[in-house]
C-alpha cells in the first residue's frame, strides 16, 4: 500500500532532526518508515510506543531502540553500542554485527543479531511475569556475556565458527542472578563467572528455545536445523542473591 509508508533520507541530518522527522511520520500515521543514508545518528526509535516498522540503511549510532516500547527495527548493516538499552517491547533485527552493552537493563522484547557482538551483551537484563526479554546472537560474543543478568533469555549460536572454536569470551555470566543463557557449543570452566553453573539442556529448555530459534532463522533466512546441529549448554545462576552475604556483617 502506498500510504502508510515513508522514506527519509537521513544523510547528513543531525540526530535530533532525524528523530523529530521519524516521530512526525509516525504521528502522520505512517506504518513503515525507511531510513536511508543513516550514519552514526544516535537514539533512533528511542522511546517509541507505536507498533511501526523502521528499516535502517546504514550504521545507526549508539543507543538504538533505547526505551523502545513496540516498534520493529530492522538494521541492514552493523549496529554500534547500546542497542536496546532499557528496551521494554518490540523487536530489533540486525543483519550485521553489534557493539558493546547490547540490551543493557532490557526488560522486554527481542534483539536478534546475525553477526558477532561485543562486550557486556545482556548486562543486567531482567524479566517480570510475562515480560521476558530475549537476545539471540548468531555469531560470537566476547567477555561479560550476561553480566549481572537478572532475567530473560540469552542465546549464543556461533553459527559461523568452526566446531572446535570457543564462541564466547571470559567472565561469562559474572554476577548473574536470574534468567537463562544458552550457548551452542562448549564453555570451559575458566570462562565462567563465579556466580554461574553449567547444566545440560532438557526437554523443557528445548520447548523454550525452539520457537525462538525458528523465529530467528526465519528473520535471517537461515536453516533452523543448522542452528540446532550442535548441542547447547545452559547457564544458570547458582544463587539469586550472589552478593547477599558479601555485605552482611
Amino acid at each position: 500500500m502506498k500510504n502508510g509508508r515513508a522514506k527519509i533520507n537521513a544523510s547528513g541530518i543531525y540526530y535530533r532532526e532525524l528523530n523529530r522527522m521519524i516521530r512526525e511520520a509516525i504521528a502522520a500515521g505512517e506504518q513503515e518508515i525507511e531510513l536511508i543514508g543513516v550514519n552514526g545518528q544516535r537514539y533512533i526509535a528511542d522511546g517509541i510506543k507505536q507498533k511501526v516498522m523502521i528499516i535502517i540503511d546504514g550504521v545507526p549510532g549508539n543507543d538504538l531502540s533505547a526505551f523502545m516500547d513496540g516498534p520493529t527495527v530492522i538494521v541492514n548493516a552493523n549496529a554500534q553500542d547500546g542497542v536496546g538499552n532499557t528496551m521494554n517491547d518490540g523487536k530489533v533485527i540486525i543483519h550485521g554485527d553489534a557493539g558493546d552493552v547490547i540490551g543493557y537493563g532490557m526488560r522486554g522484547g527481542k534483539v536478534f543479531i546475525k553477526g558477532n557482538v561485543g562486550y557486556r551483551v545482556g548486562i543486567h537484563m531482567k524479566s517480570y511475569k510475562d515480560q521476558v526479554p530475549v537476545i539471540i546472537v548468531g555469531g560470537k560474543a566476547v567477555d561479560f556475556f550476561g553480566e549481572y543478568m537478572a532475567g530473560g533469555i540469552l542465546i549464543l549460536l556461533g553459527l559461523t565458527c568452526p566446531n572446535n572454536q570457543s564462541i564466547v569470551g571470559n567472565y561469562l555470566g559474572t554476577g548473574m542472578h536470574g534468567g537463562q543463557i544458552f550457548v551452542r557449543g562448549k564453555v570451559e570452566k575458566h570462562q565462567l563467572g563465579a556466580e554461574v553453573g553449567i547444566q545440560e539442556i532438557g526437554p523443557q529448555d528445548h520447548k523454550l528455545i525452539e520457537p525462538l530459534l525458528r523465529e530467528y532463522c526465519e528473520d535471517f533466512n537461515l536453516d533452523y536445523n543448522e542452528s540446532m546441529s550442535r548441542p547447547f549448554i545452559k547457564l544458570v545462576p547458582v544463587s539469586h542473591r550472589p552478593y547477599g552475604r558479601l555485605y552482611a556483617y
Partner: protein
Amino acid sequence: MWLKNNPRPDYNYQKDISGCGLAGIIHRQRKLIPGSEIVKSINLMNDRGNGLGSGFAAYGIYPEYKDYYAFHIMYGERADIEGVERFIRENYEVAKIERIPHYHVSSIVFHPRLRRYFVRPKKDRPDREVAELSDDDFVVRTVMKINVEENGAYVFSSGKNMGAFKGVGFPKDIAEFYGINEYEAYIWTGHNRFPTNTPGWWGGAHPFTLLDWSIVHNGEISSYGINKRYLEMFGYRCTLMTDTEVMAYLFDLLIRKHHLSIETACMALAAPFWKDIERLPEEEKMALKSLRMVYGSALVNGPFAILFAHSKGLVGLNDRIKLRPLVAAEKGPLLYMASEESAIREICSNPERVWSPRAGYPVIAWLEEEGTGITAELASISEGASLRL
C-alpha cells in the same frame, strides 16, 4: 598569566558522563591523506565531546625539515617567550622559527601565542661539559625543563616530521583554527575531548606527545599517581594536568629507552590478568610474571581506548576489559580506527573488514619503509593474537 606553570585551580569537582571521541588513519604506503579526512571522521562524533578540548596529530607534514625536531610551543604572555627562545638558541641549531599558522574562529575567543621551531641540538651545547645525552634524550630534557621551569610556556609537540595541534574547542573549531585541511599526512589521529576529572585548558587537550610519540585517549587512568611517580624516577615530569600525559611518557620509556617491542610495551600497560597468566605454559608464564613484576608501576589501570602514533606506525589499544569503545577497519593500505564505526564509514564507505579489537590486545599497523627491513609484508596489520611476548 592564564597559562602559568602548574596552576592548581580550586575548581568544583563534578563527575560527568565521560565520552571522548577518537579517530585515526594510517596509509601504510605513506601516501598523504588530506587533513579534511580526519576532521570529517572526528566531527561525526561531535557529541562525544563538549567543546573543552580537541586536537590532531599528523605525521609526514614537515618533509623539508624532516631532520629537525619540530617544537610546537604555547605561551601565555609575550614575556614568557624570551627565556625559552634564549635557551633554544643557546642549545639548538635553529633552522626556522615561525608562528604556527592559525586563523580567526569566532568560537575561540582567546588562545595562547603559538610558535614552532625547527631545531637540532648543537654538537657543542653547554651540557656536553657534564652529560653525554643523545639528541633524543636532550630533547626530552628540554621539553621537561620548559614545561616545569619556564613560566607560562608549554612544549606540546617535539617530534621530527610530525606535529600536534590542539586547543580548547570542538573539533571543527580547532581544525579551522589551525587550518588542519591544509596539512597532508600519512598518519593522522584526532581527538574530541569531554574532560571529566581535570580542567579543559589548552595544554590539557589531546594529543599528548613527546618526541615522535603521540597519544589520544578516551577514558581515565586510575593509576595516574603510581605511573607519574614511576616516571619521575626517570626524569619525566607531568605538568599538563591530564592523566593521558603519563601514557606518552611510558611509551617513550618502555620502547625508546628500555627497547621493549610495541607488543611487549602494550602488554606492560594493559597486562594480562594473573588468572589468565596462570593457565599459560611455563615459559610464557614466567615471562609475563616477570613483565608484570618489573613494570608493575607502568600498569595503566582504569578504562581506556587509545590511539598511539609514532614515526613508524599507528597502534590502537583498549584496557583489559573493554571499558571504552574502539572499532577498526581496513581498506587496502589504509587502516582506520575510531570510537564509533560510523566515524570510519564517514570517510571510508566500503571497508574490506570492520572489527572490534579485543580488549587488551593492540592493533598494530606499520608503515612500509624502504631499505630499513620493514617490508610490505611486515607493514601489515597485526593484532596480538595470543599472550605470547
